[in-house]
């Protein structure tokens, strides 16, 4: 399974020190992303047209944070971003 960023025109972003506030212009909802979610969303924002799979995401995070994160944790974070309608799964 892989994910990609949803249409970026739908969102406005306010970047804080380590967190992000995101406004969904269609749904008129405002979401607060903690640092974990922000790191992952920023990875997606860095490749807006591309898709990401969990294994590749784990590698990027390992390089960025010098940490190995369990797939289960990544999946939970991706699900949170999907529930916030910021990313979507790609079959």
């Amino acid at each position, binding site marked *: 399974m892989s994910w990609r960023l949803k249409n970026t025109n739908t969102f406005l972003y*306010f970047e804080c*020190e380590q967190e992000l*506030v995101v406004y969904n212009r269609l749904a*008129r909802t405002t979401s607060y*992303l903690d640092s974990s979610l922000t790191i992952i969303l920023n990875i997606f924002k860095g490749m807006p047209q591309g898709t990401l799979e969990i294994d590749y995401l784990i590698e990027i995070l390992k390089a960025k944070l010098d940490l190995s994160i369990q797939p289960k944790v990544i999946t939970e974070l991706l699900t949170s971003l999907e529930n916030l309608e910021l990313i979507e799964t790609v079959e």
Partner: protein
Amino acid sequence: MKLSEITSDDLSAKLSSSGLKFFAGNFSVNLRSDVPAIRKGVHLLYGDSLLNDNEFTDFHINIDSSQGIRRWIRPRVSFSLSNNIPFYPMPYSHALPLLEWGLNWCVTNHCHQYLVIHAAVVEKNGKSIIFPGTPGSGKSTLCAALVNSPGWRLLSDELAIFDLDTNQLIPNPRPVSLKNQSINVIKEFNPDSQFSPTINDTIKGSVAHMKPSKLSIERVKDTCSPFLVVYPKYQASANEEFIQLPQGESFMELAEHSFNYQILGDDGFKSISKLISHCRSFKYIYDGNLNVAINRMNSLVS
């Protein structure tokens, strides 16, 4: 010409006929009323406000006593804006609080050229502090104490008005609404402060309004940039705590406290982004010791 400079007869005549045109904070009002408490209350609380000699008026307001049998049996008063009555009538004795609550409603429901936040705003040395707060947080008491202290002026005790185009806070200095124990706390803090009569048994408990300072009224056109956001919380017997809040958390709090954030959509989001970008935010817990709180606020703007 100030409202206090017109004669009592003239004031009564205007209120009962074409209307008294004056500035309530930053907004012009044409007020009509047959209720004596309105005449006395407006004369006291808005005495330093200017009369409006322009044709244009922001809000046409009536505070009318009920007619018919209700004139004598449990008499009521009603608030209307341009002949539309948005609220249920209230007890006759609540006329002056009804005017003040109605004026707040006018701004929060109609002034969408601004972002309007449920917050008190004060300023000293060109530095403003926004105090967002839920009822009971102590923001009005703290605000009232500050504007009774040297150098502070009132922008608003209830509505922080943020201009979407200029990114400035718009002053709207009107009578400070105080409730229950806060009334005596501020009367003791500054015995020279002027108050309307205390009205009991309102939906908010006992309510009285404190006249804003001359300085606040004179500087009604002096906008200022937002400097700090402080979320006060009164807790009896608590140790004083002053903790910086992350920007993201403060953003979400301000959105929550905004009356028209949802209505404004993109503009609302962008406005709070600009506001938070320029301000540090703090949570402030205090035990009600106003001198300690004032010293803290003075240190922030010195």
